[in-house]
């Protein structure tokens, strides 16, 4: 693997993570992270969509007229999202029921549009697909971490498997309500951003 490819693949996972570095796509990070299972499926769906949308847009990048650039990207992304939604309804029915509208909302996810506009429009197909995949993976990493914390402390479970019996089921664990509600995800993402900015000094703003 040459240095260039490595940079494309590893960058978005940690230091250039779309959520913690660019603070994109946090809307869905709040909505689908109360359970790990939905977060996992959302991660898979978004990674697939960014990979293929970057690939498709990069393939036709030299033919897209600048004046209808964004709407073209949107049409391609929307088609891919509907495809992902249809496939999930056919093969992952349970989870698609839980995710309901959020799959459709991948269309408006800033990461997908962001990578299409910033990367795929200016780079060759293979590199663009890799970039889309890596950004999807970076998003997934944060989404899954947030979901693990929220489901563990908010419901006393992980992937539906009971870690601590909750009071409502006759156990001892009083679930943390903050983790169940959306603000819980905000706090967690803020902590991730804090940790990241403390480690990589280059991101700190000068006073």
């Amino acid at each position, binding site marked *: 693997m040459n240095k260039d490819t490595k940079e494309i693949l590893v960058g978005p996972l940690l230091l250039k993570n779309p959520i913690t570095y660019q603070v994109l796509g946090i809307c869905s990070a709040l909505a689908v992270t109360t359970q790990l299972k939905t977060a996992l499926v959302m991660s898979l769906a978004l990674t697939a969509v960014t990979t293929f949308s970057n690939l498709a847009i990069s393939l036709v990048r030299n033919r897209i007229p600048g*004046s209808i650039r964004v709407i*073209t990207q949107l049409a391609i992304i929307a088609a891919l999202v*509907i495809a992902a939604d*249809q496939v999930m309804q*056919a093969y992952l029915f349970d989870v698609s029921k839980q995710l309901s509208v959020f799959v459709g909302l991948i269309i408006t996810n800033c990461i997908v549009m962001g990578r299409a506009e910033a990367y795929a429009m200016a780079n060759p197909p293979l590199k663009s697909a890799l970039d889309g995949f890596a950004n999807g993976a970076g998003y997934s990493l944060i989404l899954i971490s947030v979901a693990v914390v929220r489901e563990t402390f908010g419901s006393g479970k992980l992937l539906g498997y009971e870690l601590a019996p909750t009071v409502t*089921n006759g156990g001892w664990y009083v679930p943390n*309500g903050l983790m*169940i509600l959306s603000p819980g995800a905000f706090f967690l993402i803020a902590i991730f951003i804090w940790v990241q900015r403390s480690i990589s000094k280059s991101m700190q703003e000068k006073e």
Partner: protein
Amino acid sequence: MNFSNKYIIGFALVICLVCSFAVSSLAVALKPKQDANRLLDQQENILRVAGLHQGSSHPTPEEAVRLFESVTTWQVDRATGAMTKLDAFAPAKQMIDAAKDPAASAATTSEAARGAQIRRTPNQLLVYEVTAPGKEAWVLPIWGNGLWSTMYGFLAVAPDFSAIRGITFYQHGETPGLGGEIDNPTWRAQWPGKHLRDADGKVVIEVVKNGNVRDASRQVDGISGSTITSRGVSHTVRTWLGEEGYGAWMESQVKEGKK
């Protein structure tokens, strides 16, 4: 790069055609599988609320067909309570769609219906009769609004309407961990055995605010931290058991039983 207007319009047209062709062919190809999933999901929920299927695993399509041999689908006229036997299973979606059609439904006026935001109820209702030995029950499709979403579910009642047999929601968007606890088996376990109507046919079952149960024979304890969802469930159940739902049918069934 400068493109002519002709090129731009042509390009937009081609992109639209390619995308719509891809999306529609995929949707058509996957439709049978999706419909089968939805049907199985409905059947599974009916089997679960009637106690014919238990555990966390899903029944296979073959199992569902076998278990459904003891379930008969009836169409019920809401106003008169007259029953018509249907040859095949009809999903609750048929009722939900009918409620949206002004020609096939009536506007509601009761307080309970307002509470559950059920604006119309269909003129023709569906009832699933479970005849498996020891599990005899009527399963009624119900829906109504909680805090965020419409909750779709099934209510199972004893053949003589003396008590609830079970309740389940197969689709809702309530907050997981709070209102979403309507899925919690421990909470749902409170329902079986509760009285739904008194000797005069008045609906008596209700969900009360958490910790305020005075009469355990007919009151269900609400979910702590989910007052609005609990209230929504209460209004939903009361609407469907009332005159705007299955009230007339239950009344006619009770009368017939006494003959």
